[in-house]
């Protein structure tokens, strides 16, 4: 063989050997050294982790009526890079979803730089509209199918996708809005029960490792690890929707009649502390919460403080009786209506009143004398004992403590002002909790809004039994205070309008002038009535609080504004709860003014 040929063969052989050695080395590098890296790349391309979304739990009332639930909806998404006729698709979607066609078209044709592809591309994920009703989504799909029926495969309209989603709904609208709260766009509770019980309601998302084909279709037989989604629990409230409806209706009539700045009603079961109904005005619809002011979203029952006024006299009297410094029949000198030492007035002049009548006639001087006998320290202890100046612990967000000044900050006349509910600030919830303690034999309970949390099958995951805070006063003292409170609603008391035919009512009115720039103003007041019924075996305690009713000064008092509302709510609530009347209805009571009696027979 020629030497030159032999040389060429050798060179070629060596070259090939080098090449194959290089290829082998590269193969070894890729297959062995970089094995994990390429495996990961392959996995990333074909394997994905599909998130299995959990559904948010419902909120129910004590009778299992649904108060908050989820509605299945769809998000309409368009892959604009896959749309061949953006104008046609924009027109179709704009018609179906009531959107602006030009705006939608602009979204579809808008291009941006893709660093991966290194060129300008259309967006692959255009959110056309979120939370679209299932019927509307089906309508769009039907239209698309009809359009594509007459088109060839290459000419079909593609790129529209419907992502399954869920929207939170509150079927009762405005009813109970402050208690239920609302959620944000990510279905995370933002206020009310939705927020405080978010961790129970939310549930846990699951996942499934899946493999897809080149066209994106899932290969079911290659499914990997899977963890099912755990749906959120159902939260059952102590609220009774029938009572809530009564409260809301009566509150509406208060708003229509007095046009107040705000109004609050709380109904509580004194034995358990369970809240049966709670409503505030102004209110809002959680289903349409766009543009709702923050002040309207506020749950005034726990997040606002007022001077309780004369309703606070219950605390003073209970304290004095519990310390045994007086009895119900002990006479209290009332200075003939004006106590010059502290410049304190009474509405009516009394020389002397028994302790019981001090409450019945709501004597400011009388309670001031009782508190003075009690002393600052003991009086302060009882104020805190009844739960004022501290959060009640109700499971709702945003509760405030109210304001009770420490004794070191008291002025010499504070001991005469605080017993009648001035110089103190309390939340409506604190007031109703305190009266519930009297109704419950002196036992102060933590207000409860949630009964239990159950899973999808109805098994109880967590329950919230009644919580006793402390025994504030003895059962005997509670009975004595109740006795006096019954007199308050008698014809000789300040709250005749709170009477309920057939039942014995115990309660106390309150009228607190409002402070503006450090001075009490005459034309603005907070009218309230707090009581319980039936007095001998209370089924509920009820607070009606109306802030700044538009009424003349002499008519804007608790006995005329709030007490009749208490009466109407209590009467309807007694009927709803099936309470048997204990008293005979002796004489007819005026419940409404009749404008016209009889029929006009002249008309055909």
């Amino acid at each position: 063989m020629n030497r030159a040929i032999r040389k060429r063969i050798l060179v070629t052989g060596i070259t090939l050997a080098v090449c194959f050695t290089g290829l082998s080395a590269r193969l070894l590098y890729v297959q062995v050294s970089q094995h994990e890296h390429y495996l990961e790349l392959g996995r990333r391309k074909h394997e994905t982790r599909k998130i299995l979304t959990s559904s948010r739990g419902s909120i129910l009332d004590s009778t299992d009526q649904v108060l908050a639930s989820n509605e299945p909806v769809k998000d309409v998404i368009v892959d604009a890079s896959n749309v061949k006729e953006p104008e046609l698709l924009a027109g179709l979607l704009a018609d179906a979803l009531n959107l602006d066609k030009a705006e939608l078209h602009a979204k579809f044709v808008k291009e941006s730089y893709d660093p991966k592809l290194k060129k300008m591309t259309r967006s692959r994920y255009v959110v056309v509209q979120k939370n679209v009703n299932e019927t509307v989504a089906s309508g769009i799909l039907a239209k698309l199918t009809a359009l594509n029926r007459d088109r060839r495969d290459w000419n079909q309209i593609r790129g529209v996708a419907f992502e399954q989603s869920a929207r939170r709904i509150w079927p009762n609208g405005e009813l109970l809005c402050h208690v239920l709260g609302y959620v944000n766009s990510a279905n995370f509770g933002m206020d009310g029960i939705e927020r405080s019980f978010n961790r129970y309601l939310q549930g846990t998302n699951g996942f499934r490792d899946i493999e897809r084909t080149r066209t994106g279709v899932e290969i079911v037989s290659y499914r990997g690890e899977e963890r099912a989604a755990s749906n959120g629990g159902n939260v059952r409230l102590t609220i009774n929707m029938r009572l809530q409806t009564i409260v809301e209706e009566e509150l509406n009539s208060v708003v229509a009649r007095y046009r107040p700045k705000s109004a609050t009603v709380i109904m509580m079961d004194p034995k358990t502390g369970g809240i049966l109904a709670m409503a505030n005005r102004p209110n809002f619809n959680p289903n349409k919460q766009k543009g709702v002011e923050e002040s309207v979203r506020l749950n005034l029952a726990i997040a606002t403080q007022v001077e309780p006024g004369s309703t606070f006299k219950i605390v003073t009297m209970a304290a004095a009786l519990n310390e045994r410094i007086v009895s119900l029949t002990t006479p209290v000198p009332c200075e003939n209506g004006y106590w010059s030492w502290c410049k304190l007035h009474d509405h009516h002049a009394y020389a002397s009143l028994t302790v019981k009548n001090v409450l019945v006639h709501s004597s400011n001087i009388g309670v001031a004398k009782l508190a003075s006998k009690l002393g600052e320290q003991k009086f302060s202890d009882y104020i805190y004992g009844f739960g004022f100046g501290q959060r009640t612990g109700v499971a709702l967000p945003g509760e405030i403590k109210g304001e009770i000044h420490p004794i070191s900050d008291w002025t010499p006349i504070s001991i005469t002002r605080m017993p009648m509910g001035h110089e103190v600030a309390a939340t409506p919830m604190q007031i109703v909790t305190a009266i519930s303690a009297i109704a419950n034999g002196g036992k102060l309970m933590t207000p409860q809004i949630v009964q239990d949390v159950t899973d999808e099958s109805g098994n109880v995951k967590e329950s919230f039994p009644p919580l006793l805070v402390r025994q504030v006063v003895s059962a005997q003292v509670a009975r004595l205070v109740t006795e006096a409170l019954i007199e308050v609603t008698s014809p000789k008391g300040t709250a005749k309008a709170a009477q309920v035919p057939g039942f014995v009512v115990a309660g106390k009115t309150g009228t607190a002038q409002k402070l503006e720039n450090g001075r009490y103003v005459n034309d603005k007041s907070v009218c309230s009535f707090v009581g319980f019924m039936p007095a001998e075996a209370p089924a509920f305690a009820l607070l009606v609080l109306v802030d700044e009713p538009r009424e003349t000064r002499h008519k804007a008092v608790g006995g005329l504004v709030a007490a009749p509302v208490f009466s109407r709510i209590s009467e309807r609530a007694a009927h709803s709860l099936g309470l048997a009347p204990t008293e005979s209805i002796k004489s007819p009571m005026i419940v409404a003014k009749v404008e016209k009696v009889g029929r006009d027979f002249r008309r055909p």
Partner: protein
Amino acid sequence: MADNRRRYANTIPVVRFLIIGMICITVCGAGLGYLWCLHDVNATGEKIKEREVDLVKLRNRNEGFRTSIEILSSAAQLETDLKKGKFKKFNLERIGVLDQQHLATVVKMALPQQPGRGDLRTVVNEVKRK
């Protein structure tokens, strides 16, 4: 001799062919079986997927109906419907008694017994008589 005859005999090695054939059939069968199983697994997977999609659709429809029921039976909606006059209000004091609701109890009068009539007989205390 006999060995040579057997070694050089022009016969077909049936047994050997049979063994080879059996091995081929087994291998092919196993391969085809594997393919059939694989196809079946994939087909079942597709069916599972279809059923899952159907289940999700049904679940969503069910959820939708449930939501509709919740809205329609909510206190607020019932109140609105009542105001619109969709339900008739009960006036418990003024419900009149309809003709169909009248109850009539027919009491049969006992006829005086006639002696000597067939199976009828006078009832007496027979124990005392004995």
